[in-house]
């Protein structure tokens, strides 16, 4: 089985990730997921690709910490976080987060908390590639 926290160039399968999550326990009453995708526009410009730079060792360590914190804080049964690096095309998947708990509320709350915290704490930088040039993305709320 693939690790619950990963950085990878290749695309991920939501079905495979959820299957892995479901295999971890039969006590779950709810699974929440978030998939971040590459928009084909930004600030009135078309975007053809997004390139990621990452401080790999720290990013993976921070993602693992986030997963552990989320499990403790929201009493999750399990959680998975996958973030792509390298170059992705417009419309492609970027990040996957799944959380499961005995009840839906903590699963949903933890999923939102994880993506919000990931954006604040994990050293990954996104560059938009447009027909007119490239530019690093300023963090959005």
């Amino acid at each position: 089985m693939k690790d619950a926290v990963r950085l990878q160039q290749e695309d991920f399968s939501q079905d495979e990730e959820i299957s892995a999550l479901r295999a971890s326990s039969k006590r779950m009453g709810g699974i929440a997921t978030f998939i971040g995708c590459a928009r084909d526009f930004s600030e009135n410009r078309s975007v053809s690709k997004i390139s990621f730079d990452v401080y790999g060792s720290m990013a993976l360590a921070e993602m693992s910490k986030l997963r552990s914190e989320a499990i403790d804080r929201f009493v999750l049964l399990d959680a998975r976080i996958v973030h792509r690096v390298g170059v992705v095309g417009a419309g492609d998947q970027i990040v996957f987060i799944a959380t499961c708990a005995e009840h839906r509320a903590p699963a949903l709350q933890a999923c939102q908390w994880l993506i919000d915290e990931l954006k604040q704490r994990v050293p990954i930088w996104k560059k938009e590639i447009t027909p007119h040039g490239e530019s690093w993305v300023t963090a959005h709320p």
Partner: protein
Amino acid sequence: MIKVLFFGPVAERAGTNEAQVVFKDGMRLHDLREQLQSMYPDAFEIVCFTAVNGEHALDTSLPLRDGGEVVFMSKFSGG
């Protein structure tokens, strides 16, 4: 030596991904930052976070050690 890494927009402004700085006894994080800031002023305009040996470092008086790794980073934009 201290290995200094730059990523993303900071690396672009610095024109490099890595720098080696000679370690001096008693060197602290703010000493290293001052030294590098004078070499890469444009890059340091957008530096918001620092990591020492893979951990967020909030205390600028943190003592450094020979062979350590320090990263000066701009705001993250993953996800």
